[in-house]
Each structure stands twice: as C-alpha cells, then as structure tokens.
C-alpha cells in the first residue's frame, strides 16, 4: 500500500499517482503451504504494470486484491528494515528495491531466498542465521567497562571510518542466498556474520577480538570462504562482506601465529 494507486483524494491537494494502467506484467511466484499437501508449485499472477512500482508493490497488490494467502515479509519499503529479500529472476534482491520496469515486459520469477529452509511461500527460516550472528558476540567488549558518567569513549572520524562500512549490514540475508559455500556447508557462519565480527574487531573502542577468534578461525568461520565474492555483488548496502572476510583471514593467521609463538599470551 506504500505507493498509492486508485486511491484518489477528495481534498484539494492531490496525493495519488497515475490512474490504473491497461498493461499488465506477469509474476510467476513460488508457492509452498506446509498446511496443505506439502507440494511446491509456481503460480502466475497478472499484475497492473506501473513504471514506478517495485516487486513488493506487485506482491501487495496480489495479496490485497486477488489472493490473501500469498505469504511474504515486508515492512519499511525503503530498503532499510531488511525484511523483504527474495530471489527475483534468480538473483537475491530486496523486493522493495527491484523495479518492475527493469524486467517488463517479460514475466518475473519470484522465489524465496535460496539455501534457506522455506517456511511458507516466500518466507524462509531465519533462526539459523540468528544463531550464527550470536556466535560472533556482536557487541562491544571492553577490558574496562565504564559507566556513561565519564563521557563518551573518544573515536576520531578516521577510526570510525575504518569499520563504518561493515556496520551498515541490514541482515537482509541476500549474501547468504548468493554464497555457494552456504549452500554446500550449512554451518558456515557466512558473509554477514563475519562482516559484523570485523565491524566490532576493527572498532577502536572494542577489545573483544580474542573472544571472537574461535568462532571466526574455525573451519565454519573465515576458512570456509572460497572467495567467490558473490556476497559483495548482491549486498544492497555496499557492506563488502568479501573484503571483510579477506581481512579476517589475515587477522586469523596472525592470531594463530601469536598463539603458537607466545602460548602464554601476548598482546
């Protein structure tokens, strides 16, 4: 309902967009209802074609006007809540940022994010990802936790810039759906979780890198990555998880050598 259509206002100020168009575009949508016969199918819907519409607008139109059973997640419709990731013609995308005009007049194939268990229709199971997120301890770890009364921890703009990019992840999971390692190795903690670990490791206020080293250095950690780089290609926020993983590999080697050479612990 985000992009008003056919909802004329009587007030003198105009709100609404152009009238309903004659052209339509076909969405070929993956369907799976666990309550039903358990079969997966594709269902075709003809949707009014608006140049300014995104795939999410088309799905909302279907759910509102044609088929209330179509199931998917969405909220902000402005590319920041991370809810509405799905495969659009085989590519992981935020459906709120995938414009119909980039596909028209062809039909668009809509599927749930690949490599995830499908709960229903376009909804995937995110619990596994949350476990991976937690495993890298994504919070600021300090040797000397201070109360706020002493003022802020100082951090220069350059220090901020060194990790800022990795803090932009919206947890939309597109990078997992693009990563062949995630497909082959279920336990691989994956691009977003590794980027987030680097976000904290590189933060000048944080001293928790050693506590994250085990999760990162494990076989399921950075060493799982074969550097395909697809994660950075599909990231809608330019987080560059592939870059984060490469950096983490270097750090992981350093930690390993340190442990080997200074088993009593060095800093």
């Amino acid at each position, binding site marked *: *309902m*985000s*992009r*008003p259509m056919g*909802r004329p*206002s*009587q*007030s*003198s*100020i*105009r*709100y*609404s*967009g*152009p009238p309903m168009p004659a052209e339509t575009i076909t969405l070929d949508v993956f369907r799976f*209802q*666990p*309550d039903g016969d358990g079969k997966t199918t594709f269902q075709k819907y003809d949707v009014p074609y608006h140049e*300014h519409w995104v795939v999410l607008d088309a799905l909302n139109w279907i759910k*509102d*006007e044609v088929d*209330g*059973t179509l199931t*998917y997640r*969405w*909220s*902000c*419709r*402005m*590319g*920041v*809540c*991370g809810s509405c990731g799905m495969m659009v013609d085989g590519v992981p995308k935020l459906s709120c*940022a995938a414009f119909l005009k980039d596909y028209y007049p062809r039909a668009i194939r809509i599927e749930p994010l690949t490599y995830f268990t499908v*709960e229903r229709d376009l909804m995937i199971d995110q619990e596994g990802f949350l476990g991976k*997120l*937690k495993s890298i301890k*994504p*919070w*600021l770890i300090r040797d000397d*936790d*201070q109360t*706020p*009364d002493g*003022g*802020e*921890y*100082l951090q*220069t*703009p350059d*220090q*901020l810039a060194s990790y*800022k990019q990795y*803090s932009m992840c*919206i*947890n939309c999971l597109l990078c997992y759906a693009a990563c062949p390692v995630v497909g082959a190795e279920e336990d691989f903690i994956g691009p977003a979780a590794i980027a*987030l670990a680097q976000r904290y490791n590189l*933060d000048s*206020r*944080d001293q928790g890198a050693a506590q994250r080293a085990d999760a990162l250095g494990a076989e399921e950690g950075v060493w799982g990555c074969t550097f395909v780089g697809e994660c950075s290609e599909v990231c809608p926020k330019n987080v560059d998880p592939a870059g984060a993983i490469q950096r983490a590999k270097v750090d992981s080697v350093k930690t390993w050598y340190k442990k080997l050479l200074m088993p009593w612990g060095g800093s």
Partner: protein
Amino acid sequence: MAEAIQHDILIIGGGGAGLRAAIAVAEHDPDLSVGLVSKVYPMRSHTVAAEGGAAGVVKDNDSFAAHCSDTISGADWLADQDAVELFVAEAPRELTQLEHWGCPWSREPSGHVAVRPFGGMERERTWYAADKTGFHMLHALYQTSLKYEGRIKFYDEWFATSLLVDDGRCQGVVAIELRTGLIHALTAKAVILCTGGAGRIFAFTTNGAIKTGDGMALAYRAGVPLKDMEFVQYHPTGLPGTGILITEAARSEGGILVNRHGDRYLKDYNLGQPVDINDPRHPQKRTMELGPRDKLSQAFVKEHEKGNTIDSPFGDVVHLDIRHLSAKKIRLKLPFVRELALNYAGIDPIREPIPVRPVVHYMMGGIHTDIQGATPLPGLFAAGECACVSINGANRLGSNSLTELLVFGARAGAAAAAFAREHTIGATGVLEKQAEDERRRIREEFLTKTGGTERIAALRSELYHAMETGAGIYRTEASLRQTDQTLETLQGRYRNLQIDDRSNCYNTELITALELRNMLDVAGALLHSALERKESRGSHQRTDHPQRDDAAYLKHSLAYRQDDGKPRIEYLDVVITKWPPAERVYGAEAAHVAPDG
C-alpha cells in the same frame, strides 16, 4: 493446546523502546526473566527507519534549560514540564550509554561526538550517525541485548491480540505464534507495551507496514485511556507517491524549501527571514527551514491554496534543494537521502531539487503513562511512540523521539522490574480461561467464518481516505464528523470481513485483519479527541477554532473506550513548572537569542 509461558516481565515490541527496556530489566536485576514478544524480528522494527538523530545536551554552548524551553515551546505548551525536565536531564547519559554499547555516532576531529541542529532548536544538540541514526541505534541495542542470553527470551514473530487482566492488574498477554498459528497465554507480573505508533491509519505516511497502533489498541480495549490522540505530526518533507521520509537533517545541513517560483516561501509564515545560502549564518536556528514541523507542514497547505505548489506526477509538491551543499558534503553527511531520492524519485539531489510534501510521521499521543512509564492499569507500563508521557505535547521536536525511547524505555524497564519484585502471578486458571475465550473468538471471527463479503484492503483504503480528508493538517467539526460517520460504517463492515487464508502456518492475512481492527479503534479515539478540542494548538489545527485557548484547553485529552465502542473524552491539567504559557516565536527573535553556533 498451547503450552503456558511465564515470565517476570513481558515486553511487547522489539524496537528501540522495547529493547532498551529489556536491557534495563536485565541490568537492574539478573534474577528477573524477560520475555520480548515482537511481531517482527526486532531489527525489522520501525526504529530502523529513523534518519536524522537524537537530541541530548552535551556541548558547552548548550544547556538543559535551552533543551527544555525548545521542547516546551515546540509542544505549544502541552508538554508536562516535569517530564520534559527529567527527560532532558537523563538524555545525555542515555546517549552516552548507547555510545558505550557501540553505536557509531558521527564524530568531531577531536574524537568527541558531533552534533547538528534540528528544527525548533536554539542550539545544535542532535547526535547522529550520518543519516541512518535509527538504524544504528536499533542494531546496537539488538546486538547488545543478545549479551543477556538466558535473561531475555525472544518471541520473534509473535503477535499479541489482547491483554490478560485479572484482579485489577495486567498479568500477561494472549499472542499468536505466527510460525505455528498456536495461540498462547503468556503470563507475567508486569507487561510493558513498546509497539510504536499508528501512522498507517493514514494514506500517506513515512511509517512502515507494521505501524498499526497495536499496543495503543490493546491498552484502550482494556480500559486504559489514550492521551492527546488528536495530535498527529506531519513531517514536511516526504517523497511524493511513496511517503518515504527525507530527513530534517537535509535542512539542518543547509537545504532550502522553495515553491514553483523558486521562492523560499517560509518567509511568509512567521518563521523569520532568510539569509542567503552562501551567508555563513545560514542555516539560522529556529528560523525558516529550521522552524518546527507543524508550522512547516501548515505552510505547505497555505502555499497550495495560493497556487504556489508544483504539479508532479504524484501530486502537489514543493522543492527541497540541497545542491548548494556540494557533492562531497551530501555524500558524507546525507548518503541515505541521496540513495532514497535516486531509488524512489529518480532524482540525484546533487544535481536536481527533491520533490517533497508533508507526510504523516508520528503520533504525539498514545497510552497514558506517568513519568515512570506506568499506566493507570497496575502492572501495565508503556514507552516509546505508543506511549504519551507527555514530553511531546501538541508537536514533537525533531530528534526528541529517538532519545525518548531510550530515556523512557529504561525508566519503564526499571519501574516494571520494581513492580514485578513486589507481585506474584495470580489465578492462572482465570488467565487461561481468558486465553481460551480469545482463541475461540479468533477462530470464529476469522478462521472458520463463512459468508463474509468484505476484503481487508477495501476497508483499509476507505479508512486511509477518510482520515486524510477529514483529520489531516487542517480539520473542522464538519470534516471530523464526516470521517467519524465513515469510521462507524467501517466498524460495521469489519464484522462482515472474510479472509482467504485459513491455514495455521504464517497466516499473515489473519494478522492483517487483526491489525485493521486496531487501526479502526485508534482512529476512533483520534477523531473524538480532535472533535472535542475546539481550539488550534501545534499540529491540531481547527479552521473553525483557529486560536489557541489556554483557559479551556491547556489540558491533555484522555479517550476512554466505552462499552458501545465509542470514546468518552476527559481532561487532565498540563504540568507547568518554570515555563509559563507564552506565544511561540520563531525567526528573528529566536535568531537573536542564538547569535552564532
């Protein structure tokens, strides 16, 4: 049958306020167990979309008195001044605490946090993380909350449908587990509602799909009054068509608003006189583009009446021009503004002005609470946009809401923890019986019902239309009455609703139907509060009563739901401490008070 779930404290809503409350409980008392019930994964909550920043006094040139005075005059004197004073005093500590939890606040070269000015501010005091402040705050809070494993249990994608009330106090909620469709009784010694606002009752809003007034409706139906519901904030700069927000930070960095003649029209609306965009004094605080949101949105309507707005494919607009800021500054300080304008308006603000118009953004009103976040129903607390303390009065100042959810989220968490330590869960049989009634109601009204003819989307779009035309920026008794009549019809038609989806697993259509009921209830409270307030104050502008009337209405409205579903409106005096009611002055005089920055 669904298993019974018990916690010391239940928090409904996993946005900024809910997460801050959960951490407050975990830090106050490690023995208390918290259940956090959210209809979406917490990092999807709408706090994520807040852009500009969070206000807190931290620089030497600023003062608590100045933050209080800006907030109170911004509120058109309807804010409770005791609440504002403690809010302002606790704000810096909360923002610093969030810094300690990793929030990547933008910095000065010295390493101290940087601040920017926002509308209606005498001094710059808005902490920001570029122009994605809400996103960074929410993720910092969520990630920090994961530290408290075992103490905070997350019920992600659970939707609360009613409060469990027995023995005169709130002792839990009934909630649908979306994944299974099971309807559970969750009992607790205290419940905190942190469900956000209700912008989705309007057609054109910055709010995400989830902002359907759920917590407000839960409390309202349990007999708790909704306070100051007539005050709805229109943000002056939304993208036409989508309603996507272009942050006030665009203007605090120097962006200007112009009409079809290229004229900085705000000069005609008692907001002071412009200085040239190349003048080092630009932008002037509390002046022109940095006036308060209510006055800027009202000026748009007046410009439209004069024929000065610009015709666009998505309706009437004015232009927000930031080209003079330079590509470098736009990329550094307003990258999200550029991304949104590029993606959703096809405009690169480095080269072209951005088309904008006023858009429903925020509810000043909400669940009536005291300064501890306690509602009149013992055991029930509320914080964040769903609550009304009130620090926002008739018009919220930009960047006070992100701070509010920290200050009052933490306070509500502490107060609920204290309450929980002194109480036990009562007769669980009675509560389970209430849950069973709710299960039957939902089954009969939606899942097994036959013969209904109404679709959710049809009712929803009629509600949008009626609210926008009758209860928008300017209202009259006639427009409000007409909208209320439509609402009554919609309430009747709601009983004839039919949903397509009868399954248990992730029945999102059922949730949408339940959200629509919440929206209708909240809209009713809003309309009647607006009808009864026969004056113009802040965001509530009655063209049939154009003056502020302190003698009659320096009061909060309280909407109580009656048995027939209609609200009864009562009033409560506003708390005045040090700032006696006065005229709101923006422009020249304000600039005189704040000579430089």
